[in-house]
């Protein structure tokens, strides 16, 4: 697609975006192009509507998420994040993840799980703040790539915690 997600949804290319504005822009655009608006139109127009609507969905999905938004921004700055060259080589991150995993295995009470979840959510918040600083202010893309990796790992851990919580309750 020729236009990037930021442009499509009328957002300036920054990491620190207002999610309500994003959602409003997305809904405004979806109102115009959704196939439901073209139900009695010729099939060619219906197809355009479907393509436009699909692309809007894809862009919204990309910008809404803390990780894919960072990746989209790196694309925008022409220094794309390549997961193949960014496998875990960082000993600090490797140690952190092993440590968290061990903790999760040991947890058996609801309260422990809940507290652990809170801890991880706080770490995620901190990483997102750091990401903002590196992408928007410092433009340190190398550092941003490291943060993306850490964020990916933390999000996965959070999902696992929640799954364990649901299974136990």
């Amino acid at each position, binding site marked *: 697609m020729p236009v990037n997600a930021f442009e499509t949804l009328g957002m300036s290319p920054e990491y620190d975006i207002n999610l309500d504005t994003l*959602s*409003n822009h997305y*809904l*405004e655009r*979806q*109102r115009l192009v*959704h*196939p*439901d*608006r073209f*139900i*009695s139109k010729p099939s060619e127009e219906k197809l355009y509507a*479907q*393509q436009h*609507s*699909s*692309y809007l*969905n*894809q862009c*919204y*999905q990309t910008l809404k998420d803390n990780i894919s938004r960072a990746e989209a921004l790196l694309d925008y700055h022409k220094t794309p994040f390549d997961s193949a060259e960014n496998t875990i080589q960082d000993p600090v991150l490797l140690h952190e993840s092993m440590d968290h995993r061990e903790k999760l295995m040991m947890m058996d009470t609801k309260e422990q799980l809940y507290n652990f979840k809170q801890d991880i959510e706080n770490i995620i918040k901190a990483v997102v703040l750091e990401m903002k600083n590196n992408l928007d202010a410092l433009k340190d893309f190398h550092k941003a790539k490291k943060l993306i990796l850490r964020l990916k790992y933390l999000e996965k851990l959070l999902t696992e915690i*929640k*799954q364990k*919580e*649901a299974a136990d*309750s």
Partner: protein
Amino acid sequence: MSLLQIHEPGKTPQPHEEKSVAIGIDLGTTNSVVGFADEKGVRILSIDGHNLVPSAVGIKDKNFVIGKDALKLRDSNPQDVITSIKRLISSSAKEIPYFNHKIENKEQDAMALVKLEDQILNPVHLSSEILKYLKNKVNDKVENQINQCVITVPAYFPESARVATKDAAKLAGLDVLRLISEPTAAALAYNLDEAKEGYYLVYDLGGGTFDITLLKMSKGVFQVIATGGNTSIGGDDIDFEIAHNFSQNLKDLSQSGQKKLLQISKEAKEFLSQNPDRLWKNGKYKLSYNDLEKLSEKIVSTTIKGVKNTLIDAKITEISDINEIILVGGSTRLPSIKNALKDYFSKEPLCSINPDEVVALGAALQARALTHGSDKLLLDVTPLSLGLETMGGMIEKVIPRNSAIPCSIAQEFTTYQDGQNALSIHVLQGEREMVDQCQSLGKFILKGIPPMSAGMARILVTFTLDADGLLSVTAREKTTGIQQSIHIKPSYGLSHEQMATMLKESYEHAEEDVKQRLLTEACVDAQQILNVLTTALENDRDLLSEAEFDQIRTTSNELAALLEHPALEDRNKVVGVTKNLESLTQEFAERRINKAVNKALKGSEI
């Protein structure tokens, strides 16, 4: 006659282009309901005097019997009547755990087949008979035939079942404007779009399916955030538990014995839901509300677990973020369900609209919005993940579940052997990791990949889901541009050939009638033109030149000759000559109007 509407200046549509009318259909497991909305509001269209039409199909003396009559027939000929057809549409014969009718091909991984009288039938055909019945009954009451509709499906309905539902509608001669999910329809009926912005949870327990949908309301847009549920649990399972409680060896009973016991069990459930403080008795069987609660406990707790998982999917952490809980489906009348939800959410669930009618009302509102425009919009999601088989029987997810639709997602794949010149594309649906745990939707092979070393080819596979949630898959080798694509038809569903044959069969009898009707219409039109023309020529021949007159006369004579003994095949000829004559006389008609207007204006000036 058709009625006139007032339009904005210059915006009057051409004749036959007026906004069309569409109904909403809830094609339910137990009952089917038709709704209709206009500017006066939304209502259920009663059929044979009832709002609910039992989703039952029977055959008597080779004729289909639908609804109440089918249930009546069941009393005398249980083997010739089938209910809960929707359960057959959502899984293959092999996967159906228990069913109230013998399945002819129980061991096959194919669409289930049942026998009524001596006919073997598939669920698409059976569903189409119900839809046809509803359509005909509605059209009996109106002059302009309605053939457009919105049909609801469970949110958790897999791709294959959506395709099957659309096929059934096509067989019934219905044009489906949109498939929408039942819980979403229910939310539309509650007019939540005028309610407080925020999250709403729809809990839908029908006879044979369980759906959960989480919606978000903002700026007049209804977004489905997450869906969950289970296509194989429902209120019928509670009946089954009760029946099992009455008779431990239920499965050893005869088919009709089983049906009878299940019917009694259902009655017990319905009685106790209404009268929890009384004891239900029928012959040697009796049941108390406490018994019922115990027997339904497992199913209720399974559904509550489903609710929790859906909230996790949607990343909702605070239960208080949910504004309202909406109950849909007859089975939510069971008090223990209301109580379980009330306990979990600390909130009284909404159930002011009849849970059996709420879905059809919502479908009708959506049908109105689609045909007449609306300032509201519904954004739906796909309920199950879609992916491809990769090496070692693993699945690579291409579209994760709860992705907003329509959507189109492309992923690059490559070859794994040197010189590999073809790639098998196996499309699957489901949440599990391995191929044999998911539902296969179809396979195709991309051929003609130029020889390269392993991992060098770049094959772009694009999954496209339309707004109904129907999938098509395209594979393209990037260096050569070779491309293959398929519209997914489920492997156990109906093939295109089967569908074509069924359509042909359903048309065969109707074909003659349709041809005759078309011919009659064409002849009536032609005769009208000729009549008008005769009068016009009598009065205003002077408005035509000799050459014009001759041309018109030749063509009108030709048409008149055609009308003398028209055969079925002559229809196109009649239409063609009529058109000719219309265009030849268009100018004449305008001259006549001008003449008449001038005359009238002169008259009024005096």
